[in-house]
């Protein structure tokens, strides 16, 4: 029974009667404040219940399905690290052959998407399967102990890109996955951030309405791997968008069709400072200053390339898109 607010409804019934679809249930083993768990919950909420999911190896697979339990309330299949897109392709073909109309989702982390599962993903896009592939981008191999991936941002510390005498964190740049995906000329590719839940829902629905392959990359902070408190996950994700380091955009058939404008771009240091993985950039070291300038230049480049600077306040810009109202209207 719930012991609060004087309610006498058994909490189990309360859980069953929530006015939204619960695709990913409680009891999963994600860390405190896990951005990926939240993002996966939001995606399945918007997509479900009529979906099947193929999941690549990664945190999401591990923490949702500690055998013999599962936190999923949708048909869900895990095979390997590299083949989520291939499995999803097969599911879609099989459903089509049976004349069924369930939507097919493929889930992967940045490791399973940017690196290991990339060729399977490219094949799925090229063959035009009607699948929505969602990448939960937490910018490193968190499940195996924070190794750098091709999604890890420049200058970030991971266990395989430690700052030291030779380097200030990761030497290389974050792979521009959305441009590569869009280059497949697919109908819908987008980026989103866990700090903007209604934007995620809107994009999931939009992607599922389209016939053909769709891709969404969701920026999902990892408190453990990034080195910030679990309570800061939304704050950090929001700052990534607001500084321009993580542009929120939509590309249809390779053409830019939507951006989330920045009302007042923040300096990248606002985003970097709360995170331990960038702590070495705040040392009194000329190389650190250079890397900070480099990251600022990358953010400025994003703002310029995608035209992110808003001309006037907009209800859907980085400051307006998360506005709340009594009654929860914004989450419609």
């Amino acid at each position, binding site marked *: 029974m719930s012991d609060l607010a004087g309610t006498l409804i058994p*909490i189990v019934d309360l859980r069953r009667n929530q006015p939204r679809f619960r695709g990913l249930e409680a009891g999963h083993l994600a860390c405190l404040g896990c951005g990926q768990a939240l993002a996966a919950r*939001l995606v399945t909420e918007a997509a479900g219940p009529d979906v099947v999911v193929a999941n690549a190896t990664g945190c999401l697979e591990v923490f949702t399905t500690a055998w013999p339990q599962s936190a999923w309330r949708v048909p869900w299949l895990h095979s390997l690290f590299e083949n989520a897109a291939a499995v999803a392709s097969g599911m879609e073909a099989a459903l089509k052959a049976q004349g069924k109309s369930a939507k097919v989702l493929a889930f992967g982390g940045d490791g399973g998407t940017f690196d290991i599962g990339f060729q399977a993903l490219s094949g799925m896009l090229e063959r035009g399967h009607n699948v929505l592939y969602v990448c939960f981008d937490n910018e490193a191999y968190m499940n195996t102990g924070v190794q750098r991936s091709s999604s890890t941002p420049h200058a970030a510390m991971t266990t395989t890109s430690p700052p030291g005498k030779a380097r200030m964190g990761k030497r290389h740049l974050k792979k521009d996955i959305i441009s590569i995906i869009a280059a497949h000329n697919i109908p819908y590719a987008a980026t989103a951030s866990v700090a903007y839940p209604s934007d995620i829902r809107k994009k999931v629905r939009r992607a599922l309405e389209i016939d053909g392959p769709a891709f969404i990359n969701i920026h999902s902070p990892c408190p453990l791997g990034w080195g910030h408190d679990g309570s800061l996950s939304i704050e950090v994700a929001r700052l990534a968008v607001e500084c321009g380091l993580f542009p929120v955009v939509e590309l249809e058939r390779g053409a830019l069709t939507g951006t989330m404008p920045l009302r007042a771009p923040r300096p990248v240091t606002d985003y970097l400072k709360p995170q331990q993985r960038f702590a070495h950039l705040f040392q009194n070291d000329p190389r650190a200053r250079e890397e900070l300038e480099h990251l600022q230049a990358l953010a400025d480049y994003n703002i310029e390339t995608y035209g992110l600077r808003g001309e006037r306040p907009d209800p859907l810009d980085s400051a307006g898109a998360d506005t709340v109202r009594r009654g929860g209207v914004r989450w419609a």
Partner: protein
Amino acid sequence: MAIYTRGGFALPETSLASKTGTWRLQRPIHRHSSAPCHTACPAGEDPQAYLAQVAEGRWREAWETLVAANPLPAITGRVCDHPCESGCNRGQYDEAIAIHNVERFLGDQAIREGWAYPVTPPSVNAHRVAVVGAGPAGLSAAYHLCRLGYQVTLLDMLPEAGGTLRTALPPYRLPREVLAQETQRLLAIGIEFLAHHALGRDVSLDELCADYGAVFLAPGRQQGREWSVDGRVPADLHTGLRLLQEWVAVGTIPKVKSAAIVGGGNSAVDLARVLRKTGAEVHVITHDALPKLGVPPEGAMKAIPREVKQAQEEGVMFHEHRGIQRLLLRGERVVGVEMVHMKKLPRPDGSIGIVPFEGTETVLHVEQIIPAIGQVVLAAGMERILEGSPFFAVDLWGHVANHPGVFAGGDARKGSRGTVSGAVGDGRRAALAIDGYLKGVATVEHHTEAIPLESLNLNYFEHEPRAEEPLLAVEQRSGDAEVAGGLVEPQVMAESLRCFSCGMCLACDNCWTLCPDQSVLKIKELASDGSHYVFDYDYCKGCGLCARECPSGYIVMEDELLFAGRY
């Protein structure tokens, strides 16, 4: 039960068997903190609470919440200096909520719809309490005593209730119809009103003390302060309050070409505007500053800033930081005054003195000089309690020292700021204290700190301009027509939706949406009392995301050890 197959296999939502709540070191809880509008309100209103009800379209409940503290919202919504809006956290973000307009709208709506005050008539055996003075303090005390189940007799020397509201507030600020309707509706809850009853003439204080369980004295300040410049007084001297009362009562005022009013309170400004309507050239001389941004309240004129602004619009000339040093008399007739720059400054001994600056003297040619420097209590009938002092010395609850059973408040109280809302609050607190006195229990103060802006998450709000009420054009302000026009329903609704809901659930779904562990559960679709969501502590891992992202500061994290044994 585990099912063994060649591949791993599990049934849906079987993870619910993993009670991840055991990981928790901190738990989120809902904690209602006082909104700054509430702590700032001298009458004790909680605007956040009724704004939430307005936002849900529950107009009558909103009015009932409002009158649980202040029975005169149609009046205070018009004449209060609204410290709630000065306290409003939104004021530091864009513009404060127009709370006084919401209050006024609800008060007017109750009158229009005939909503009855939520009071059950007291039983015939109930204790009897006497209240002297039917101004805002007396009316408030009588109402709250009635709510607490007492039989109340309210005495006033005038033929009608209202006190200073009736005798000294110009109708363009408070239409007489509104005053009459609200006071009549209030008296109709079962208060025995004895008009034409002056203390010391028709009834003595000793008689009241003998016949009633307790007495609340709220006679206001009826006696003008003595005023002179170096002992010299013009022959035709009238105090500002007297002139104002005369104008309000009979509608006439001695016609002069020019006048200087000394003082910076509401009476000074009201009188200035009334004189200005007759076509006179009017100067207001005050040693305080004009109210504007950056001037601390203790250094500014006591008058309500918006009234000062309207007076300026109408052509009243203000001379701030000035005092009168000498009267220019021809015989006993005033032909002008000598003004000098003055400022309140700390003296070497630490006290505050008003210092004139030599060499800054100027002459102002005026026909009349009117002091409006405040009043004192008219002692008639209360001499043995006042003991020669100009005001009642009372504690927060209105207890008159050494006179058990006698309480006092309103303008007559020492230290009163002379506002209607302050008087209403005095009446309310005295009613509680009288209740405690008659039951033999001490009345305790629940002091709460207001939740600061820093405890809110402003990312979730958007800048939205405040609704401004229409004001009568200056050239139309000659008669009794009300200057401030009030807001209409959609504007009041919009204002309620601008409220940050400081310290109380906004019912915005943010925690429900952002919990990575599906551990915030919604229990109803609409709620303004904080009962919208519950935490499922079986699964909540205590990450603190909900508390961090709560827009209104209603979720706080508590150390889990505090709950040991309760979990």
